């Protein structure tokens, strides 16, 4: 039987359709989705949609330097004569990559630690995991990430590692809260009595009930991670020029304020649009799943 005819798949597909219907009734989340899709499209196809793809990296054309926005260069050009619109499109790539890589690295360990600590709540396992989590949460994540970046050579990759190192505790804490209340539910007790294995209880009984919260937090966090990433590049501890990173571009442009305002303002707006998109979607999820704790 083809997989889409199986009853299990049918049921999930129906749930998805219902969810999508509810999600699409909320204009705010649809706007968010539009932003995210648009930004992702521009990022993926940057070499094809950018008017001057060669301006993304090391490129100099002083005869066209520091031009205000015009039809030829809608966002103007920077001091090296590079088209800012093209660089913003490539900048989306680095922002999205930052968010995706960090979340991929951070969510699995954070979730597993939270599940384990929550299930064994009150034991030494809980104690150890959650106190370590507290330590990481005791300082603003931006500052710890800055501190880690400062001892490494500044680069996009190291910035991602630094933010990842600081981000898992948020997931551990979220899942801990959920798991420690779910473990007292009857379905978990039933599974225990039936002799289900620990991994089964953790991953097949408790985890599916946390997924909506994790998912919502991930979409909100895409925005936060992008903000932190851009802040790291802004101070010069993240992506290095000539990488077309949005934070780096804002930092470069800030030197030429207020006269050549377009160099900093358009990349800044690009950061805001990206973060806004993920935030709106996250809010849509939160309403959809009726969550409070994320």
């Amino acid at each position, binding site marked *: 039987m083809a997989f889409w005819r199986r009853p299990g798949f049918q049921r999930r597909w129906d749930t998805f359709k219902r969810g999508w219907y509810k999600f699409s009734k909320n204009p705010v989340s649809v706007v968010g989705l539009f932003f995210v899709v648009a930004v992702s499209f521009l990022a993926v196809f940057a070499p094809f949609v950018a008017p001057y793809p060669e301006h993304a990296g090391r490129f100099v054309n002083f005869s066209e330097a520091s031009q205000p926005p015009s039809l030829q260069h809608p966002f103007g050009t920077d001091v090296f004569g590079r088209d800012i619109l093209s660089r913003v499109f490539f900048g989306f790539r680095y922002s999205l990559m930052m968010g995706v890589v960090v979340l991929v690295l951070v969510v699995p360990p954070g979730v597993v630690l939270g599940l384990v600590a929550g299930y064994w709540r009150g034991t030494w396992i809980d104690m150890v995991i959650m106190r370590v989590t507290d330590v990481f949460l*005791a300082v603003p994540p931006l500052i710890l990430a800055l501190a880690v*970046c400062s001892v490494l050579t500044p680069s996009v990759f190291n910035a991602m590692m630094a933010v990842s190192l600081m981000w898992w505790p948020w997931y551990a804490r979220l899942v801990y809260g959920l798991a420690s209340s779910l473990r007292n539910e009857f379905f978990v007790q039933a599974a225990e009595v039936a002799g289900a294995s620990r991994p089964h209880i953790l991953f097949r009984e408790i985890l599916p009930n946390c997924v909506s919260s994790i998912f919502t937090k991930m979409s909100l966090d895409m925005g936060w991670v992008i903000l932190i990433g851009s*802040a790291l590049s802004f101070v010069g*501890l993240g992506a290095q020029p000539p990488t077309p990173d949005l934070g780096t571009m804002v930092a470069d442009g800030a030197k030429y*304020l207020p006269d050549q305002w377009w160099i900093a303002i358009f990349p800044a707006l690009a950061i805001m649009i990206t973060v806004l998109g993920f935030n709106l979607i996250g809010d849509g999820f939160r309403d959809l799943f009726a969550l409070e704790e994320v």
Partner: protein
Amino acid sequence: MGILKLVGKRLVLSVFVLFGLSILIFLISRVLPGDPVRMALGPRAPEWAVQNMREQMHLDKPLYAQYYYWLSGALRGDLGQSLFTRRAVVDDIKEFLPATMELVLFAGVIMAVFGILLGAVAGRYSNTWVDNSVRIFSYVGVVTPSFVFAILFLLLFGYVLRWFPTAGRLSPGITRPQVITGMVTLDALVTGNFAALGDALWHMVLPAVSLALGGMAQEARITRSTISDNLRKDYIAAAKGFGIPERFVTLKYLLKPSLIPTVSILGLDFASLLGNAFLVELIFNWPGFSRYGINAMLRKDLNAVSAVVMVLGVVFVIVNILVDLVVAGLDPRIRLGAERGK
């Protein structure tokens, strides 16, 4: 007694957290590629000088011994010497921390007062144009990095409109009041130097507002949702039914319990103020602790970096205990729960 017990418990936990943080930051600052001594002295320093300094900083000893020296120094209030300014890090911090605390406290007050005010108004008049404008403001506030606000304000109010100064804490013509706390506004107030007080406040408006907006938006959002939820609760209808005046119902029965979630996240928002101060101080050339921290990080000044992170950890822990106290004051369940030894 309940409150005391609560505070005691939090204090014990905080000591553990700070101890863990000290290990974490020590590991970050020591287990790194590159030689801090070489970097501090420069590539042309003779080998014996490098050796001397390494011994002086105990960098030739094993890691656990280094940690022991560092921690026992830190507990005595000696956080080592800055590799660049060649001064005791503690002295540097004493000089720069008040400027940042002044800025962050000012921003925190703006954040809390206006955030709660906006949220309360939006929640009270939910689904009207007031509510919608606050909602749009919240989105803009939440998604804009504070350094972008800082740049925009600098551009608009500093350079174009020239309403506010663009850098520093005081105008060149104003003499700094005698240093008592290090916070210029407070010192000016104590010494009665009102010209300096006004000038200092004037300098603080742009950086503080750019810092505060993000958290303010979040506070407004949370206050709004709790207020509009609580507005529909039966006890409010009951209070109104008893004929209790509208204003009294709003302030005592509606606002007070609705503030609990808002205050709980104030601690987190305060942390992000401290974090974002790192960027905003850079932009407004604010001679504070965060700018010192950023420069230390950019120069790989290890002792200074670890000291900066530890001091922030201490500040953050204190703020969180204060927040817990305020929440306990607002929420009788926590007070009573603490009494029952829960």
